[in-house]
């Protein structure tokens, strides 16, 4: 399906807008759906001319709100645009609107949004995954062909997988983070959720590269992608993780499919496997407690109505503005950074992070790619009956190692079981996105992203 001109060409535009508004009412993907604002800032010309895209609402787009799914920023309007957005706008793409998310990117179901409920297009009772759940649901529903998300511990790959579309988490530093609201700076990166591998590839290629506005962004090294027969490793330790049978089945089938394509699939051992979730949550919460200290009710964000002095104003504003999961992570992060506890938690977690990096270096000395599931269970139902906040954290086991090691990873639809999509992911060495994309394209030629119920056929 050709998306060029969908948001600009008369006739197409109205048809698309009507569909988008109706679908959004059902699914709750967008916190703000307003392509009129988006059109003003786009060049309208280039490789992405007139293509609408969604933006997770923790990425700044000038003149749109920037809520982070939080009461804290409910009415904040962004004064500027992220570099990634500006690059896409220069290529002709048009911001359709801002998508729902778990508050500040903290969660795996988008249920932690304080502002909106998002539903999975495959089954409205189920969550779209998270934290970039609005972006994934919008792409799977056919409202936009791609959408931006941020991936701190799996927040692009997991919702993409829950909604049956592709999710690319680039190498840390490959895409500028200027304009991304900070949660855990050493882990997070802006990524893409897309209906096709081509759309993910195109958006990523336009966004990547060093940016003077982000000190930690890295220059893109051009290197020829290797083709041919790939050596793919599957961590032996995966088998010890309690997994739903549908996920297990899909993992086995994916390995068979890759062998049929002529690739080698072998076992590889990750000694640190059992410790990635601990290391991840210590580091992520520590960084979150520091990054979210900026919300003090003074210059922007929610301010309490009842404070007699500045101290009280900050304490009450923060307590009223943040939701439970955000408070939990701030508390945990403050605790692990307390003097006397730092060595036991934060320093130890950073040392384990070194061991995790070494595990990957060792693996990639002999392998081209690592294959893993994305999440141990299929999309679960809203309301926490099958998955509480603690078990959702443990379930980050397959996704958060790529963030700790700074490596690129891409999730792809690998099967459909009982009417629900199941995803797998490839991980690659730093800056080997082209290899990842190429491998996903090969899988796509055999098993493309399945269309969710109600997916549109065309706009003409």
């Amino acid at each position, binding site marked *: 399906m050709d998306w060029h001109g969908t948001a600009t060409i008369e006739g197409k535009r109205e048809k698309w807008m009507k569909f988008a508004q109706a679908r959004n009412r059902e699914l709750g993907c967008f916190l703000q759906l307003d392509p009129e604002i988006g059109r003003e800032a786009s060049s309208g010309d280039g490789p992405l001319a007139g293509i609408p895209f969604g933006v997770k609402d923790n990425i700044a787009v000038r003149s749109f709100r920037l809520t982070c799914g939080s009461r804290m920023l409910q009415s904040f309007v962004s004064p500027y645009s992220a570099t990634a957005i500006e690059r896409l706008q220069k290529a002709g793409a048009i911001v359709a609107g801002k998508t729902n998310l778990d508050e500040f990117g903290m969660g795996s179901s988008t249920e932690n949004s304080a502002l909106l409920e998002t539903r999975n297009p495959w089954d409205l009772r189920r969550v779209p995954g998270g934290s970039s759940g609005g972006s994934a649901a919008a792409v799977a529903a056919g409202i936009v062909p791609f959408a931006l998300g941020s991936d701190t511990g799996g927040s692009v790959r997991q919702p993409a997988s829950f909604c049956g579309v592709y999710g690319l988490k680039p190498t840390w*530093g490959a895409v500028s983070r200027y304009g991304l609201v900070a949660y855990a700076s050493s882990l997070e990166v802006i990524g893409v959720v897309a209906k096709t591998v081509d759309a993910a590839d195109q958006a990523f290629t336009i966004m990547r590269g060093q940016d003077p506005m982000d*000190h930690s962004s890295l220059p893109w090294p051009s290197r020829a992608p290797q083709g041919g027969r790939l050596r793919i490793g599957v961590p032996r330790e995966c088998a010890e993780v309690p997994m739903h049978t549908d996920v297990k089945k899909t993992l086995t089938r994916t390995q068979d499919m890759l062998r049929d394509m002529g690739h080698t699939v072998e076992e590889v051992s990750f000694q640190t496997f059992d410790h990635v979730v601990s290391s991840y949550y210590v580091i992520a919460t520590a960084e979150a407690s520091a990054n979210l200290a900026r919300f003090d009710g003074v210059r922007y964000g*929610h301010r309490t109505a009842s404070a007699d002095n*500045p101290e009280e104003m*900050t304490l009450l504003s923060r307590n009223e503005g943040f939701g439970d999961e955000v*408070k939990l992570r701030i508390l945990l992060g403050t605790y692990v950074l307390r003097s006397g506890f730092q060595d036991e*938690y934060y320093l130890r977690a950073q040392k384990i992070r070194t061991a995790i990096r070494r595990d990957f270096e060792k693996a990639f000395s002999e392998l081209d790619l690592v294959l893993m599931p994305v999440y141990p269970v299929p999309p679960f139902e809203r309301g926490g009956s099958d998955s509480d906040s603690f078990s959702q954290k443990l379930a980050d086991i397959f996704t958060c190692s790529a963030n700790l090691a700074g490596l690129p990873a891409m999730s792809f639809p690998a099967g459909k079981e009982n009417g629900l999509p199941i995803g797998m992911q490839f991980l690659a060495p730093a800056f080997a996105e082209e290899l990842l994309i190429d491998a996903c394209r090969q899988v796509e030629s055999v098993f493309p992203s399945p269309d969710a119920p109600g997916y549109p056929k065309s706009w003409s």
Partner: protein
Amino acid sequence: MTARMARLSLTPQEMEKLGRAVEQMLQYFSHMREIDVDDLEPTTHALLQENRTRGDVERAADVSDTLVNNAPRREEHFIVIPNVL
């Protein structure tokens, strides 16, 4: 104590609920003791390169009005907070 350091004024109910959740995570973190980290250097950033400096030159940003307009309370171009003294 931790809540005060985190600048959060929690209600007694929140204190109990969040306290339990923090406790559960800390207990989970205690498994980190099983791994030997003695000869490992800590990683702060997986791929951070050397410090880069930029030229000390003026740039226009044109965002000051939108920034100030986002303040919860203001008088003209000033941000107002409760009395300090």
